[in-house]
């Protein structure tokens, strides 16, 4: 009688997930994933807002600078950026800075830089779309009140654009969270790293991967929920058809 090699040979042992030390590893992994996501997001949002705005200004030179940033950083795979930020960039820094990085969790810093700069380029396009969707009369009105161009962007256009782009921003934020798993390639012990670690210690791969799946799903649903609230709160009356109205 042939013995089934997968269907029956595998014995599930879910308790692995909460026995010490594996449960603690998962929690550490979640914390690291959150750390990467939050820091990466802040960097991405700052870069995205600045470069997205820059890509719509009258100055051809500045628009060019914005364009170069976006095209370079969004068109190279994030995995490659991870390696470049970890192995490449520190090489051009002075020895003292390299030493400092090595002693201060350079892996995490490189991963945050990779995530932030890559997603910053993608966010810049979202912000640009937001700004370009604002009727040009808004800018003219702002300028006619005596604001300089910079002030008009900082006080009028960018704030409006940010309120318009919440749905695609949610999308990008979720992508950033999930992409943080690539940091495992440069030795950052985030959630996926930990599930692999548990797997290699216990050979209980299905349990570990299931845990990882549920963790990402849970985190993403959490982010979605928060972003939905933000979307609801910051929507500009009259400019966006609100959620409930979309089905009419």
């Amino acid at each position, binding site marked *: 009688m*042939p*013995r*089934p*090699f*997968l*269907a*029956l*040979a*595998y014995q599930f042992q879910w308790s692995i997930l909460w026995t010490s030390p594996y449960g603690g590893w998962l929690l550490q992994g979640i914390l690291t994933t959150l750390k990467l996501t939050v820091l990466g997001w802040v960097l991405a949002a700052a870069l995205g807002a600045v470069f997205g705005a820059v890509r719509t200004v009258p100055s051809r030179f500045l628009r060019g600078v914005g364009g170069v940033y976006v095209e370079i950083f969004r068109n190279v795979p994030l995995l490659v950026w991870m390696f470049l930020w970890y*192995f490449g960039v*520190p*090489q051009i820094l002075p020895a003292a800075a*390299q*030493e400092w990085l*090595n002693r201060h969790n*350079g*892996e995490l810093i490189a991963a945050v830089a990779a995530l932030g700069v890559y997603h910053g380029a993608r966010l810049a396009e979202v912000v640009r779309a937001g700004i370009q969707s604002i009727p040009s009369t808004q800018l003219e009105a702002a300028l006619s009140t005596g604001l300089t161009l910079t002030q008009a962007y900082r006080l009028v256009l960018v704030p409006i654009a940010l309120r318009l782009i919440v749905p695609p921003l949610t999308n990008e934020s979720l992508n950033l969270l999930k992409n943080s798993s690539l940091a*495992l*390639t*440069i*030795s950052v*012990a985030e959630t996926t*790293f930990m599930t*692999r*670690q548990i*797997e*290699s*210690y*216990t*050979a*209980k*791969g299905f349990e570990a*991967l299931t845990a990882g799946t549920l963790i990402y799903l849970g985190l993403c649903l959490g982010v979605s929920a928060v972003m939905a609230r933000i979307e609801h709160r910051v929507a500009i009356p009259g400019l966006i058809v609100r959620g409930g109205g979309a089905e009419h």
Partner: protein
Amino acid sequence: MTAVGRRIAAAGLALGVLLAGAAPALAETTLEKIGRTGVFVVGARTGSPPFGFIDKQNNWGGFSVDLAKMVHQNIEKKLGKPIKFELKESTPATRIPLLSSGAVDLIAGTMTITRARRESLDFSAVFFVTGAQFLVKKGSPIRGVQTIAGKRIGAQQGSTNEKVLREKYPQAQLVVFPDQPAAFTALTQGKIDAYTNDGVQLAGLKAKAPNPAEWDVVGEFFSYEPYGMAMRKNETDFRNLVDFRLMEAIESGEYQKAYDKWFGAQGEVPYPLSETARIFLQMQVIPR
């Protein structure tokens, strides 16, 4: 039913059909699977000279791969038809899932046989014996496990060395890499102070480095690492086939020939077979 509900139901149905279709294929032994598909898939390393690595001419081979090819001969003999020999990359982190999902039929790399692993996998007889050491830049203050406190020590994720270091030597700062080339680059750049792995693999890394004289393999073995080929659990027929082939190879001198090809003075990684290891290997050969 709403549109969304219908869609979910359709997706569920599709998944059900898929699983039902896949189920019969899963309920077969490794030998039956090889016979049906006509392919013998072996999980091998790509960056562990000379066990499994890609050389400068872009050829993928190595000592473990040669042993797997010997197993391949006997599979063809047993099944009485030509079978394709295929290699698939496996790392310490991926080899167990590759095996348990059926993506590969045999792991022929640098896998240490441990009791914990034997809970969920089966192993062949031991085909190589080594132990953990450190690879450091020449002149490094690290000379062995006594001198690693507070140092950043690189290890490969999923390796036994990583586990030993984590559990027995918490005074070192462990930095875990998914593969050996990444860890070696980190060592070259001074991101880690030492890299730990099985002594023979470190000898391989050193031999393949652009400037071998720059590196030292240091320290006594701080772990015992007997390598075996891994397969799915509870398949005596297949395990016997693998084991018997290995014994034949040791008996007939094919093992020694393969060993000399990779570890001999002219080999990729000169690493003479110690007398103890030679006796140990021969003792494993049980009578016919």
